[in-house]
């Protein structure tokens, strides 16, 4: 799932939590929130890895052009 959607969902959970749910609901929401946070972080790390890989690839391509001589 897109990071923004996950984050929006997490914010929805937090808003619900803030609007004063009962304890059991709160715990359930918090649990759901932890899951969404984990997904968000996984998504973020994945993006980070992809960006690093792409930047590396870009460096390789430009190295082939012998840009730095």
């Amino acid at each position, binding site marked *: 799932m897109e990071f923004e959607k996950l984050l929006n969902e997490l914010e929805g959970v937090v808003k619900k939590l*803030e609007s004063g749910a009962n304890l059991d609901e*709160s715990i359930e929401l918090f649990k759901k929130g932890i899951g969404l946070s984990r997904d968000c972080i996984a998504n973020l790390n994945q993006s980070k890895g992809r960006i690093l890989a792409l930047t590396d690839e*870009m460096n390789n391509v430009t190295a082939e052009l012998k840009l730095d001589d």
Partner: protein
Amino acid sequence: MESISVTELNNIIKSVLDLSLAKNIAVFGEVSGVSTKAGHAYFTLKDKDSSLQCNCFSYSRTYLPKDGESIIAYGAVDYWTKGGRLNFNVKTIEPAGKGLLFLEFERLKARLSAEGLFEAAHKIPIPKYCKNMLVITSKEGAVIRDIVTTVRRKNPLIDIVVKDVRVQGAQAVKDIVSALTAADKLGYDVIVVARGGGSLEDLAPFYDEGIVRAVYAMSTPVVSAVGHETDFSLCDFAADARAATPTAAAELVAYDYYELRRKIIDSMRRIKTLTDYALNSRVSAFKLAGRQLGSRLTERLQRSQSRIKMLKLRAETALNKNADLKGKAARLNVTATRMTETLKKNVSEKEHALSKLNTALDNLNPARILSSGYFRLTDGLGVDIKGVKGLKPGDGIVAVGHDGRAEATVNKVKKGVENPR
């Protein structure tokens, strides 16, 4: 009228004669009045209408004619100014029959000339660089040797083929004509018909109409070299070129190989020098252009490289900005914190409410009431006494406190509520 001296007139006559008459004339006539004095001969040459006074100095070199003999006298007209007389100075005398022969030749020459056999337009140029030559002559004698020697002196390459023919006598014409006709088909570059000098009779075959026509009909260039320098044969007139002697014919036909070789070598050197120069100048121009091109290319390459670098940087920056991993992480962090805080808050709110309730509950705890000095009253049966109603003096009651119980008896009952303070 102005008069001139005799000497002047004679000088004029002499100069006019010198100008207008050839130095070498052949005159045919009959000799008369021959006298000799100190090695010189004097005689008159005449035909039926005219006579000519002749002197022949040192006649022993030629031929002394007799009175009444027909001769051909070769020589020049001379005007003796001192005596005012015209003489024919004879150099060579040829006797009798030859004169007739000569006349015959002259008539034939005139006829063939009128027919156009000697015309320059018909003549084929002699090739400048011939590779081979056929010499039609006698194998005997000096002629062929002279030709070979002369050709070889100039040129070691030309093939010299000799066709041996009789050049004198009755068979000579037949030999030469058939040699010419056969040779014309063999593709020689040039054919030389040669014969050494001799008397008019000796040279007679070369005055033959058959030979003249054969030479005329040739499609191969023919050089005629018959006799010595003064001898002109009809063959000479018909040929494409005439050489005074066989040696001269060889000179004419053979190109100078050594001279040509030297010229070619010189030309090749010049060509090499010129082409080297042309090549070198073009090579330098090319190198220069190459260097200019190279520096322009390098410049463009460097510009392109920096553009690529810039674009790369912009792309990376834009990617990082769009990705905004830090911002997202921060947002996630904030949200997670909010979530945690909210949960904590919710829990603590609940705890607080619970604690308030506990306190309230605690306040309601009978033990706590007893401990603040209150007692619970029951009757003897342990039933709670809620008021004074039903009590009467003397009733036994039990007071339960937080630390024990006391049994008491009611003394007095009074209804109505009093302020405890």
